[in-house]
């Protein structure tokens, strides 16, 4: 009994007066995901990786808008989004104080413009994603002619690309004949 009392006295107070004093988390703690809309290219890699579907992407082809959204209420703080993001637009912060008075405060979203196809005019990919691919091409060390050819294709939607390819192939066969 004496030992116990001595131990209790030795330890003193083990708690801190949270929330008036802050709680320190360890470095590398995985808290609320932070989204940088400037860096994001709306490629949807995070939405595919997200195990609980907290991150979702919706595409409005009529308006030409792609919406990235995060519902923190579903988030499991696994950090897969951070791992798969090609531009480092998502990072897990150290923020763990997530209580809100209004559920709407748990939602975060960002809209991105889609590019229209140069041929048929349908919206097909986010402008920023195309710019990102363009930048990659510029840095890839391809010859200028070749890069210019590939870049011309960037403005065309997959359906039109297929049609073009078929036309080209048919043309080749006709030349042969």
């Amino acid at each position, binding site marked *: 009994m004496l030992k116990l009392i001595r*131990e*209790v006295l030795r330890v003193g107070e083990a708690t801190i007066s949270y929330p008036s004093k802050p709680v320190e988390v360890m470095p590398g703690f995985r808290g609320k995901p932070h989204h940088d809309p400037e860096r994001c290219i709306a490629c949807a890699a995070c939405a595919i990786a997200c195990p609980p579907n907290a991150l979702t992407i919706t595409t409005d082809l009529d308006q030409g808008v792609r919406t990235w959204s995060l519902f923190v209420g579903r988030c499991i703080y696994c*950090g897969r989004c951070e791992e798969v993001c090609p531009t480092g637009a998502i990072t897990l912060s150290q923020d763990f104080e997530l209580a809100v008075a209004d559920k709407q405060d748990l939602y975060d979203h960002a809209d991105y413009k889609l590019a229209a196809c140069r041929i048929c005019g349908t919206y097909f990919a986010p402008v920023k994603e195309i710019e990102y691919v363009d930048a990659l091409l510029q840095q890839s060390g391809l010859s200028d002619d070749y890069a210019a050819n590939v870049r011309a294709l960037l403005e065309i939607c997959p359906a039109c690309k297929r049609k073009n390819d078929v036309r080209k192939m048919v043309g080749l066969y006709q030349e042969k004949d």
Partner: protein
Amino acid sequence: MVIGNETKPKIGQSYVEAVRARFGNSILDETWQAPDQVTLTVSLNCLPDVVEMLYYEQGGWLASVAVNDERPLNGQFAIYYILSVEGNGDEAPPAEKAYVVVHAQIPPHQPEFPAVTPKVPAAIWYEREARDMFGLQPIGLPDQRRLVLPDDWPDNLYPLRKDAMDYRFRPEPTTENETYDFIQVEGEGIVQVPLGPLHITSDEPGHFRLYVDGEHIVDADYRLFYVHRGMEKLAESRMSYDQVTFLADRICGICGYAHNVAYSTSVERALGIEVPERAQFIRTILLEVERLHSHLLNLGLACHFVGFDTGFMQFFRVREKAMKMAELLTGSRKTYGVNLIGGVRRDILKEQRLTTLKLLGELRQEVTTLVNMLLETPHIVQRTQNIGLLEAQVARDYSPVGPTLRGSGFARDIRVIHPYCAYDRVPWTVIAKEGCDVLSRTLIRAEEFFESVSMVERCLDAMPDGPVLTEGFTYKPFQFALGYVEAPRGEDIHWSMLGDNQKIYRWKCRASSYNNWPSLRYMLRGNTISDAPLIVASIDPCYSCTERVTVIDVRKKKATIVPYKEMERYCIERKDSPLK
């Protein structure tokens, strides 16, 4: 069909030969998933005999039973009895230890199979579950009640059949009342004590009924699965196979990482992925860090139930260091989320290593003081010795796992029997006790705590350099294998079969408490009701907070509902019985 590893020597060949010698023509196929994992396909009618022979003659323990709807693949249902066969302990040299899976096919036009339970009681829950989830009738199973499905679930809707239902669908309830048929104990002066539906000391609700004569428990019955979350169905329907690791983390709030490793290793084994050495060590370290906090939690609760609440507070104060350690190494106090198929996502860096070693030193010192204090408390031995006896024969029949089994004299630990991760590369000792009582189980946890501390230190010291993740493997459809981990409460077994669409075709995960619950009835018999919460806590079940307890007096034929707080108070103070 033999998959991979042909060059490595097969462990378990002698058991296959023994089965072939007795059952010859009934053995239809033999496939090896790993050097120590074999699946024997047997004809349905000799299934119980093969399982019985492996269990009692060859020293087998029932690890799990997986049922699979393979109609889209081959037109049949399949049932897999997973046995860890370990010999009877008297062989020289020691018998080889292997997982032998007995597999039989069940035709869909006659969805029934001969029950194994009359020969091997350990199969009882699994066979009730097979009937609930797949509509496969175990012929000869004495217990005809549901296990998993609620009372208001429609008949003839078997959720895990592939064509049964969408995972988001919840059928309309068919009844308003609880229709579960608790066992009837007749006799002079027996009282029923229902504990629950929200039960004893836990996170999950369960309905306990204690049959008492005065203060003495004559028998016990319980109904669980009030919070079945349908995780297996969810994983098969919605998630891709590499996302399921994160779901596995959430099976248990205490030993989630053990499930995570069990799932990951099952898939890695099925796909033949070699996990880098360093990742194996990191997994071992994190599994033991998880054991540290889990055992401290249980030791804290042991203090609480014998009325030593200061000790409870002190154990929880010290436990915080183990939680901080997990936060430092994984980025989260619980749900570590560091496993991917092929390895881990986070390395352990020098600074983390040094901080962990410092925390381990503090833990060892503080817990030593606390455990000594706990054992010097006059009540503790008196309250726990010879209480909640789990006789060795009952343990042998029901295949309980972890400290529950090791407290009854069996030095059985999956980390030694089927070494995984890096457990065969660092020295450590298995702790077992002969007492069969609550005291033995508590002492085992205390001693295992110190083993874990040393093991983490040794792993941090011995871990090799190198990569922590294997990437670029090929996903192969319809391969299956077992994954197993000795979680703080006993072995977790996962049986996974991959699909052909980046998903899991079937994921059978079995948590350690599943194997421990059926033997609890025998531990409760013969004790007084004031010891009931103590006994239930001693198996450290994944348990829920009991709000109330029903007590049925057999003599007065009277049911009394006792609030759980009152039961707990009675357990701690042992005066003013709530039954009077």
